[in-house]
């Protein structure tokens, strides 16, 4: 009896340990093998895992949002999918980690995620003090204000004394503080952990003003009880270049992320879409051929296959397609291209050439 009990206890302990560490242990085995080859290369770690771990928002329509089935969509998500297409030739090899704005940098710095593509503003502090590298800009945004129309406010300069709602852990808090100080106005800031709580509090009338990036305002406005009773004020109080972020000190991975984004922008400029990418591969234009990998060995220089950009464009699409599908005028967000138009069409999107 004693022995049986002993064995049963041993089995329980073993089973418990196995259940708990099971998942982790397997990864340890895999990753250790990689670590022998070369120390701390994100690219190698990603290849060993078989997927890109991408940090996204906890739900911002148009940028990164999960539907009922758990499928993530949005222009930030398309960057992640593009990276997966470039690395694996398969845009579905991404796993998403939803992060609050408070957790995102810690998650990236700790190696929890490989790339952060979560409407993150490029600032000098983040580039230097936080040890991050911004791989480019996938949406030029600016911070704005959403107010109820019933207040009859026409300009942000009339807002002296307002109660302002925002999300905590973002540049919005700093910008709005600066804006009010600069204009000699007073305000009270109510900063929430999650965007949903901000919307609910604003909707309930806790604040007169909701401030965040204008794209975010457009997205969150759709969640209000009566979206048409609210308006975005004309003022843009900050520059908010949003883009994907990687850790400092891994130039290869940094290049892959940066050129994934550029490939998407260049593709739009050259008129390559997900539909015609295959047929354009043998186009007469050498720039197109270089991009799609039929000429030169640009992919191999990145440590990828030469059809890396071909995979991105045929599976994810070019920048314009991504924009139209997720945030453009035909989506609930109804955001016009504006400054996010190509430089050749009056915007400021300008990607370095591939040559």
């Amino acid at each position, binding site marked *: 009896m004693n022995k049986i009990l002993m064995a049963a206890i041993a089995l329980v302990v073993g089973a418990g340990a*196995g*259940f708990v560490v099971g998942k982790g242990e*397997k990864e340890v085995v895999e*990753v250790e093998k*990689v670590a022998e080859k070369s120390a701390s290369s994100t690219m190698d770690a990603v290849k060993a895992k078989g997927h890109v771990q991408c940090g996204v928002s906890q739900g911002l329509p148009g940028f990164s949002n999960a539907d*009922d089935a758990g499928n993530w969509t949005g222009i930030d998500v398309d960057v992640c999918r593009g990276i997966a297409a470039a690395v694996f030739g398969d845009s579905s090899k991404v796993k998403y980690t*939803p992060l609050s704005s408070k957790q995102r940098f810690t998650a990236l710095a*700790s190696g*929890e995620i490989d790339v952060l593509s979560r409407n993150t503003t490029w600032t000098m502090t983040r580039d230097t003090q936080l040890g991050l590298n911004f791989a480019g800009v996938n949406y030029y945004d600016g911070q704005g204000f959403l107010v109820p129309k019933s207040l009859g406010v026409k300009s942000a300069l009339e807002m002296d004394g307002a109660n302002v709602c925002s999300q905590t852990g973002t540049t919005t808090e700093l910008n709005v503080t600066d804006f009010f100080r600069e204009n000699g106005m007073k305000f009270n800031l109510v900063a929430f952990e999650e965007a949903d709580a901000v919307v609910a509090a604003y909707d309930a009338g806790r604040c007169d003003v909701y401030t965040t990036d204008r794209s975010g305002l457009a997205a969150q406005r759709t969640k209000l009880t*009566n979206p048409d009773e609210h308006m975005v004020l004309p003022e843009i109080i900050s520059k908010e270049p949003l883009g994907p972020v990687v850790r400092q000190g891994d130039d290869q991975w940094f290049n892959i992320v940066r050129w994934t984004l550029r490939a998407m922008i260049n593709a739009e400029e050259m008129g390559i879409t997900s539909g015609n990418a295959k047929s354009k591969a043998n186009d007469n234009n050498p720039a197109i051929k270089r991009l799609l990998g039929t000429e030169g060995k640009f992919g191999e220089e990145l440590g990828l296959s030469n059809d890396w950009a071909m995979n991105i464009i045929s599976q994810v699409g070019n920048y314009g397609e991504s924009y139209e599908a997720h945030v453009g005028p035909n989506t609930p967000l109804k955001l016009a291209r504006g400054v996010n138009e190509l430089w050749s069409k009056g915007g400021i999107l300008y990607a370095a050439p591939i040559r």
Partner: protein
Amino acid sequence: MTQKFQQDVFVRTVEADTLPPPAKETGVMGWLWRNLFSSMMNYSSFGLSFKSLLMALFTALFFYIGFTQIVFLIDFIFVSAVWSDPTGIKREACWTVTQGGALPDGWHAACWPFIFAKLKFVIYGPYPIDELWRVNLTGIFGLVGLLWVLLSFLPYRKQVGIAMLTVYPVIAFMLLTGGAGKIDLLSSSSMILISLSLITIGRLSKRGFLGIILQEFANIIGFLGWALISYEVLMLLLSIDFGLEPVGTGDWGGLLITLVVAITGIVVSLPVGILLALGRRSDMPVARLLCTVFIEFWRGVPLISVLFMASVMIPLFLPEGVNFDKLVRALIGVMLFSAAYMAEVVRGGLQAMDKGQYEAAEAMGLTYWQSMRLIILPQALTHVIPGIVNTFIGLFKDTTLVSIIGLFDLLGAGKSAIADASWSSPVQAITIYLFVALIFFAFCFGMSRYSIYMENKLSKSRSH
């Protein structure tokens, strides 16, 4: 006259019928008197009148509050609620006239079609729809096993219980993840060899073939061997691919995650808590200090910061490249946290034990572990069943905090369902919160009722 009276002295020969008790004491009136009016009908002095009036006031007030709340809830959940959305107009089904819908202005009740539409997401999260049968099967197995163990009239309860603790986790793990883990065959087979030899050494040394020192520690060696071999065999088992589609924990969500975190936490926190409690009362100063510091640390810090550390800072403390699954990390955080609480509950039980029990066990010549297993713990644990179940309930509710670190548990899935603008209406959030609250209530209330039932049963068995 007096004569006559003397003659007619009446002596009762039959017993009179018993009078009925005063009307105040029986039937509906009596019940009402005892349970309601006795506390508010004493006007014999100024102080008592004041007290009675106050009591009457409070009674009326609480009755009013309770009654209106119940009426409101019934109205909100059933009567006024929107139950179907036959035309598929989504959010407009729950809009009032001013918002552009068809419901009268001032309408405020649950919007159930929204829950029906989100039900899969709230229960399973993003788990692939084609694979849901696996979750359901796991759930059914778990439910049947649990009922079997809990219902006292069924046979083989002990065996089923052991199977639930050993075989079931393995099955659940394989079903839920798909079990397609990779494993290094060479290292695991060498580990198995090592553990086999450990067991052999344990056996040999127990019989005294390997000297006195090893004989003393034979049990420990054997135990290590058994633990190691079960672990390795388990890993081998888990690595077998049964042709199931692998589903990463990133795709788990909703009630599934809540239950996985809660059940694993409950199963692991009890033994760990017992060990910690024993450690805190140990004779060894180092062990005592360590356990005390450990318990007080976990009891002293908020779970939010523990989870924040577990979710984003753990990679900083581990060697480069080593990483744990996010769910596992949250699990470890929750488990250590509740183990510390459990330890304090168990310690309370140990302290309440009569010192004579310890001394008697020692006098019988039982070793420390024997006396704990056979004498002390069975008594101490039954004493603190309410405390243990309260800790379980606390743990179950604390699983909501994993939504703060980005796991889509029941509450997290609910919150992300609110983010869907195609269902946005003023009652969207409250409906889903209500639904989530009802689910939590059902589980926690069930646990607390079962604990009361157990307590009564045990106290009955103790009293005779």
